[in-house]
């Protein structure tokens, strides 16, 4: 399920990032773990319940200014939908 731009995603209960000192950065979940790098790590770090999807998109637009903004937003929505279906985030 794709999120609305106004919702504030946050990690689901039982889901957390491993410690900064532990590389590679990994999203830890019941019985599973997801290696994160680049944009996926930046997105997950912003899923803190304080940023709307719109705000996350704007941060990514600034970070990846050479890419087309609409494309970034579409990819973001797709990735958040995937994390939601995997029960990694709530929104």
């Amino acid at each position: 399920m794709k999120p609305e731009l106004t919702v504030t995603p946050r990690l689901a209960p039982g889901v957390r990032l491993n410690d900064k000192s532990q590389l590679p950065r990994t999203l830890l979940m019941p019985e599973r773990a997801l290696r994160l790098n680049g944009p996926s790590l930046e997105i997950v770090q912003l899923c803190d319940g304080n940023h709307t999807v719109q705000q996350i998109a704007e941060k990514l637009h600034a970070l990846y200014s050479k890419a087309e903004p609409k494309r970034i937003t579409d990819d973001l929505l797709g990735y958040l939908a995937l994390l939601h279906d995997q029960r990694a985030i709530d929104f």
Partner: protein
Amino acid sequence: MTTTLPTPLALVAELTHRCPLHCVYCSNPLQLAKRESELPSETWIRVFQEAAQAGVLQVDFTGGEPLARPDIVELVHAARVAGLYVSLITSGLPLDEAKLAELVEAGLDHFQLSFQGATDETAREISNSTSHPQKLRVLQWLKKHRVGVTLNFVIHRQNIQELEEMLALVDEHRPGCVEFASVQYYGWALANREALLPTRRQLEFCVAKLKEAEERLKGKTRVVFVVPDYYAKFPKPCVGGWGRKLMLVSPDGAVLPCHAARVIPGIQFENVKEKSLREIWESSPAFQKFRGEEWMQEPCKSCDRRHQDFGGCRCQAFLLAGDAAATDPVCSLAPTRGKVDLILAAVNQPEQAIPEQKPTYLYRPNPL
């Protein structure tokens, strides 16, 4: 051929074999570890630190009943501080609200509650104990905490008919995940196989119901279904491949590549009391025995699926084919598949041929 050594990702910490339940399919070995042989807290704490250093991400606290250890809160805390993601796999029995709060406070990430059925009556028959009402209480207490929750229903011939009621519990409590784990046949479950192996018709019912549930619960609860591998066309990638992802430390400190590995004769398991976890992972003969592909026979050796299922389960190969290096007999390509088909044929006789009577179970006892 050079192969890089895999990194262990998961540690199964079998803290004790003591348990208030006596489930007829318990995954513990037939020879249970005695209480007096259990590792002390400080050894477990060292094991968690060594595991994290070796690259392990997650630890599953199990047993027996892990809550039977009086130091459980201290162990959860130590594992979390060591950098591990901590799951508790429990019957929920020796628990009260205060203890749950302490566990969460200590850093517990994930609480997996096992169910023997959807009704008290079935749960009693399977576990030879009273536990179902307590599990329902635990579900209520869990709502007060922000912790991962998985409901684990172990399913088999005697409780598949309660699937709808099990799903109703899921609807009511909305855990992050629900597992419908079919019994697999080792140890205690093998001894009780005749009573537990479902019919093909039951399995088809289950597949249809759970497919529907998965659709309905998408985005709410993740539904995991583990099929009974006797009915599968290809074997399961048991423990993600021998010595490839997982290490299990038993209550007395012996380190095993899987729950059932002790059934394979001639393997010496090293102990955390004598060696570090990393040393055991990297160089113990037990972990090397079926690591990689060198040990494989045909048809595995030249099979395209060998990187997917790693030849299936070594323990099952020994138990059913009499050779731990054989292709898992549940594989449709295995020369010994006929043995599995015979077992299935006996279960799937026309229904009027099966006399309906209460099975006689071999219950798992408590260790001394």
